[in-house]
């Protein structure tokens, strides 16, 4: 068996009866045992469940009854996704012993697709508060260099996918929590269009900004995972009632004819990125141009204009979710979360409503700017991962991030690795589409990955195991 398989590769081998789901699962369990003591990407490893899932998949393989391309694929769930009978903590002391009775809708769908549940993955506390060192579990570490930050909040998913402990996993994204860890850990991750994938059974942070989505090593794998999680959920009031397209349909196409708008001022002026990040974006644009894409610059309002209402709405809604506990158990939260959310108590109703009015203005602005474009491109993160002990507490107030604009507008946004910086850590770009145009976003991301060699490199800690 190759040491590192993508979901697409493993699925094809399983379908051809050339790969045993049990062997693949044991390989991942072995890696978890050897590496996760340094990574802390898992809050709980569900070994018995994983082996049972894998054996059931293998039985289906042998009887030609596979459920599809995810059957037998080892995955993990961010620990804000409810799992029936399996502890779901939100990485918080407040839910340290919480055992749900039902799976999240996404969890149900992935289980129905035949995935193998390896365990529950680290997050920032309730998907906002990290990196925190005062919680019952340590924060996840970046597998490219464990002194460095993973970003968050889907930190465990980012670390475990990059290190090859799982082939894919769930994330959630309220201000960048899928794309941030994807960027800093050098993997692919998509925040789908708001409403495409159910949020039911996932611990809420900010209901009008929360998105569920997949993270994996490649764009193609994200398309496969999203296929199995998208769709209308009548019990999620934000869920879109529309057909789910084939997200892999355009993966064979290159970028020819794509109309690409570069939001250059986001990453050159509003929050200037590192030289390696900028080079990655420019090189990607050269690749798209050579394939026949039409590229132009596009100007939106300053990035902070998008971040400000986004963070205000997030803080207000998250405070509303947590207010009872904040009033009764303030000190049971980690310091970062309680300080960030306490600011929400100081917001007025008028300020919240004005931010919602501003949100609509900015949604209209983005829609108009994209009228003659297929995708936007900017950075996912400003640079390589910082050291984990050097992450500013109030980073979101100090500088605009690249991801919040697309939570605010609800547009699909994909982070793709564009190489490695001087420190050997990944850099990335962000590809943004029109509402429900995930297939086009995947097409561009896959075309880029196929034209570059970045997917051939794994963290040294993982490759060292293969001898």
């Amino acid at each position, binding site marked *: 068996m190759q040491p590192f398989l993508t979901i697409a590769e493993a699925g094809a081998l399983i379908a051809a009866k050339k790969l045993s789901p049990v062997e693949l699962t044991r390989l991942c369990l072995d890696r978890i045992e050897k590496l996760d003591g340094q990574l802390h990407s898992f809050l709980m490893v569900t070994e018995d469940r994983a082996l049972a899932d894998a054996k059931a998949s293998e039985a289906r393989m042998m009887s030609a009854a596979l459920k599809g391309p995810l059957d037998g694929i080892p995955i993990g769930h961010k620990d804000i996704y409810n799992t029936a009978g399996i502890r779901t903590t939100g990485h918080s002391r407040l839910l340290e012993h919480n055992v749900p009775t039902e799976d999240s809708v996404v969890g149900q769908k992935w289980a129905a697709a035949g995935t193998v549940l390896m365990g529950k993955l680290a997050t920032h506390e309730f998907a906002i508060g990290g990196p925190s060192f005062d919680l019952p579990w340590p924060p996840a570490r970046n597998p490219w260099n464990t002194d460095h930050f993973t970003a968050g909040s889907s930190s465990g998913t980012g670390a475990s996918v990059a290190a090859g402990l799982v082939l894919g996993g769930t994330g959630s994204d309220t201000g960048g929590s899928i794309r941030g860890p994807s960027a800093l850990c050098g993997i692919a991750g998509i925040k789908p269009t708001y409403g495409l994938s159910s949020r039911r059974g996932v611990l809420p942070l900010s209901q009008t900004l929360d998105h569920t989505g997949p993270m994996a090593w490649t764009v193609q794998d994200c398309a496969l995972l999203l296929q199995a999680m998208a769709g209308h959920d009548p019990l999620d009031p934000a869920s879109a009632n529309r057909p789910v397209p084939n997200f892999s349909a355009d993966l064979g196409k290159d970028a020819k004819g794509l109309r690409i708008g570069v939001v250059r001022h986001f990453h050159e002026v509003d929050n200037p990125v590192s030289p390696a990040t900028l080079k990655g974006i420019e090189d990607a644009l050269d690749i798209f141009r050579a394939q026949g894409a039409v590229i132009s610059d596009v100007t939106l309002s300053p990035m902070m204009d998008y971040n400000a209402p986004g963070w*205000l709405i997030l803080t207000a809604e998250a405070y509303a979710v947590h207010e009872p506990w*904040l009033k009764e158990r303030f000190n049971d939260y980690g310091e970062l979360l309680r*300080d960030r959310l*306490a600011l929400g108590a100081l917001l007025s109703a008028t300020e919240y409503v004005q931010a919602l009015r*501003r*949100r*609509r203005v900015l*949604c209209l602005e983005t829609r108009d700017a994209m009228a003659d474009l297929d995708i936007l491109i900017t950075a996912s993160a400003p640079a390589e991962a910082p050291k984990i002990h050097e992450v500013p507490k109030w980073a979101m107030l100090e500088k605009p991030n690249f991801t919040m604009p697309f939570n605010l507008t609800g547009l699909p946004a994909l982070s793709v690795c564009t190489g490695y910086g001087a420190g050997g850590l990944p850099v990335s770009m962000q590809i943004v589409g029109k509402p429900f145009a995930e297939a086009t976003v995947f097409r561009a991301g896959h075309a880029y990955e196929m034209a570059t060699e970045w997917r051939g490199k794994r963290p040294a800690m993982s490759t060292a195991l293969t001898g």
Partner: protein
Amino acid sequence: MGKDAFSILVDRTGLTLTDDQKAVLFAAYPMFQAMIARATPPMPREAEPSLIFLPEVM
């Protein structure tokens, strides 16, 4: 806003914070106020919020 006024503001929220915890928030509050100001510029009277009530609930 001074520290004392800020302390009263926090107390009115119903949160129970120590003086040290209030001091941390007080230090960040100017940045938060700047963000609020940026998020709430003057808008036309007709500007609708992004969330609109729907009478058909599921």
